């Protein structure tokens, strides 16, 4: 019989499962392990103005696609102001307006952002526009640009050359003229854009924050963003080096002021940044949401909490089934029924392992004893099963009451064992006991408990539970493995024991 279809089906299933997992991990950033915490920053702009019973309009520049970051969440707070967020290609602003307000007005903008190196500046600059500054500045600019061009070969070296001249401790008279209006880094960045524009290089000033934990009065630093024909690069206007501080958060770009207002005065701005820790899974969820990924829309985690709780258990059953296949086909352990051990393992989740095993042995032992007594009454199959069921309930009750009287809390959890599972176990054990003998019955009983304990241990691993809930496609991989195990024709481990005499005589 050809195994090709088997390999193809298993391969396809495993590939589909893996592909989904890889997509979720790589593209959406789902963490593979539970309790992975993600670094998340909160940036907050708070500004206040005085208003005088007049219409007030206030504008705040907002972060717009900050490179290297994803904005997970944003909040705007003001007292009674109408809010509009206006967005253009490279800038975004919040416009607050009110017909009448008096006193000190406070505005808050708060964003939760997470680093993501894959986010880059996506925009490309339009044609370079040269503003005329009038003489004598025009001549000074032209001279400097000519000199810088003469000593450079490409955009990068031209930029370096321009910045070197701006930062020259002993500038020539042309540069002196340009710097006469101010030597702040912001001014230097502005001069650089003018010089670069003259050299037909697109550039702009960007204001960024160096994200620091617990910063109450963060300062914006101007950066020079230069387009080299394919991507944007950052330069610190106070030096001539390309920079890319890891925690540089670009807030806004262009020549606009951070805040602007009409009908008010006495502005004060306070920028704070702090770091907080969020479950990586939560971050991934929010990001998947922002990316409009269908995977996130159809995620198990979108179901109501109580339904999720059911699936948390249901999704573990296949793990148990897989272990059963492994333990039966590869090891050769004998159990009562095929999947009874999985059901017992699920009950162990309620009772805990030790108490579970003790109580299971106790109840099944008592049950088998009573079942033999019942046998003397010669009942038909179904009434006998019903009678055993009732005796099991009574046995459970007795164990609970006795253990409570003795002050042993352990016995109370016996009620968490599903009745039917116990009854089936008792019936199976009795039949095997009667028909094949006590050795086989005890062997199978021990096998059942052993397999149940192994299933329980594996199923209660946090990482396993997390894996199946966050990545249910793991089940596809599991299915592929079960398909392959279904055609495993090698010896079972316990067959080596069974045929030990043959092996010994062959040696």
């Amino acid at each position, binding site marked *: *019989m050809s195994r090709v279809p088997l390999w193809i089906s298993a391969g396809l299933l495993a590939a589909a499962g893996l592909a989904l997992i890889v997509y979720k991990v790589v593209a959406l950033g789902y963490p593979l392990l539970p309790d992975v915490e993600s670094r998340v920053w909160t940036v907050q702009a708070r500004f206040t103005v005085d208003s005088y019973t007049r219409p007030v309009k206030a504008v705040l520049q907002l972060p717009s696609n900050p490179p290297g970051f994803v904005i997970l969440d944003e909040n705007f707070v003001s007292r009674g102001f109408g809010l509009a967020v206006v967005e253009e290609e490279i800038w975004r602003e919040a416009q607050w307006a009110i017909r009448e307000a008096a006193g000190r007005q406070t505005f808050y903008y708060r964003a939760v952002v997470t680093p993501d190196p894959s986010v880059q500046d996506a925009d490309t600059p339009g044609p370079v526009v040269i503003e005329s500054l009038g003489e004598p500045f025009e001549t000074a600019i032209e001279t400097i640009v000519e000199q810088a061009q003469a000593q450079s070969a490409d955009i990068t070296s031209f930029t370096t050359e321009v910045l070197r001249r701006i930062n020259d401790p002993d500038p020539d008279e042309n540069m002196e003229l340009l710097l006469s209006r101010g030597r702040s880094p912001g001014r230097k960045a502005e001069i650089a854009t003018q010089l670069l524009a003259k050299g037909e290089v697109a550039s702009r000033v960007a204001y960024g924050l160096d994200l620091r934990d617990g910063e109450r009065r963060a300062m914006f630093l101007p950066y020079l963003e230069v387009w080299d024909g394919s991507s944007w690069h950052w330069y610190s206007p106070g030096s001539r080096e390309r920079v890319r501080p890891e925690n540089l958060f670009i807030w806004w770009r262009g020549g606009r002021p951070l805040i602007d207002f009409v009908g008010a005065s006495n502005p004060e701005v306070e920028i704070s940044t702090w770091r907080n820790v969020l479950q990586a899974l939560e971050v991934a969820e929010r990001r998947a949401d922002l990316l409009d990924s269908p995977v996130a829309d159809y995620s198990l985690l979108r179901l109501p909490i109580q339904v999720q709780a059911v699936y948390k258990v249901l999704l573990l059953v296949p793990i148990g089934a897989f272990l059963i296949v492994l333990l039966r*086909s590869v090891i*050769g352990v004998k159990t009562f029924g095929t999947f009874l051990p999985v059901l017992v393992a699920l009950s162990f989740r309620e009772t805990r392992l030790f108490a579970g095993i003790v109580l299971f042995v106790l109840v099944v032992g008592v049950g088998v004893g009573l079942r033999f007594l019942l046998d003397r009454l*010669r009942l*038909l*199959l*179904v009434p006998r099963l019903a009678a055993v069921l009732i005796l099991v309930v009574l046995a459970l009750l007795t164990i609970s009451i006795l253990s409570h009287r003795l002050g042993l809390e352990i016995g109370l959890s016996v009620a968490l064992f599903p009745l039917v599972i116990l009854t089936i176990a008792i019936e199976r054990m009795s*039949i095997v006991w009667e*028909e*094949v*003998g006590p050795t*086989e019955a005890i062997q199978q009983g021990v096998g059942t408990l052993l397999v149940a304990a192994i299933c329980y241990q594996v199923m209660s691993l946090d990482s396993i539970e997390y894996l199946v809930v966050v990545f249910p496609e793991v089940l596809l991989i599991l299915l592929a493995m079960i398909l392959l195990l*279904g*055609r*495993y*024709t*090698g*010896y*079972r*481990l316990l*067959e*080596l024991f*069974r*045929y*030990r*005499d*043959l*092996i010994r*005589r*062959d*040696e």
Partner: protein
Amino acid sequence: MNNGVQHLRRLGVLGINSRNVDYIRRFNPRRLYPLVDDKLRTKQLAVEAGMPVPELFAVLSTQHDIRDLTDLLGARDQFVVKPAHGSGGNGVLVIKGRRRDVFFKSSGAPVDRDEMAHHISNMLSGLYSLGGQRDRVMVEYCVQTAEALAPMSYRGVPDIRLIVFQGYPVMAMTRLPTRLSDGRANLHQGAVGVGVDIATGSSLGGVLDNRCVSEHPDTGQKLAGMVLPAWNQILEMAAEGYEITGLGYLGIDIVIDRDLGPLILEFNARPGLSIQIANEAGLQSRLELVQSISSEPASIVARLEFCRQHFAVPLPK
């Protein structure tokens, strides 16, 4: 451990997984299972093919029939009661004697009419059937141990299990009841399996609870060297079992009656593997040998000739 696997491979021992996937799943079509799982249908098939079987005295199909038990049994004092869908000898009741309404099992233990009725009632409600479904109960002729086998058995009738692959009997053993097995010839219940040379019908070593044994645990009789009567006839019946059932990988149970000779007892679509320990030989190598030639249809005589030649002990190298 690896070493053990190598030894098993070298001996050609067939493992459970390989038996299930490579032989049962492949050569035994599922639709044929009902033929062999229902012992009544098996019996019918065998009778139609003109093969000897133990005579069927009565069939009970409903709980109501139990009331007529006394009538059905008549004056019989030796008979076997068994579920039509039982497996592994479960539920079989062998009655060897009777004093009015008290019957005696082969062990000598008494069974009164009520106990018998309860037992039958359990069988009817499916206690011993494979899927737990309602069952029918057969009452049939109790086979008398052939004299040649008498020293070998302890209160019960030995039977002969043959594995027949594509119509070729590849391995055989005789199963001897023990005190532990309560007169039943089933390895699970403690019977001794004794390997039988396919070529000659003479017994080899034994297996008890998966261990090699050389003596009967109850009688102390040496197991090797006994020659089964009517061996050729047994081989022919086994080979023909393939044509009757259509099952490529088949276990056939045959009993030898003191007066009637070999009788077909039942067929098994999932025969066990302990037979390999009894024969100290692997099934897989024999099955592969048959696979290499079985594409050519062959007569029963030719098939048996092949088996005698290739599966004789010691195996020709």
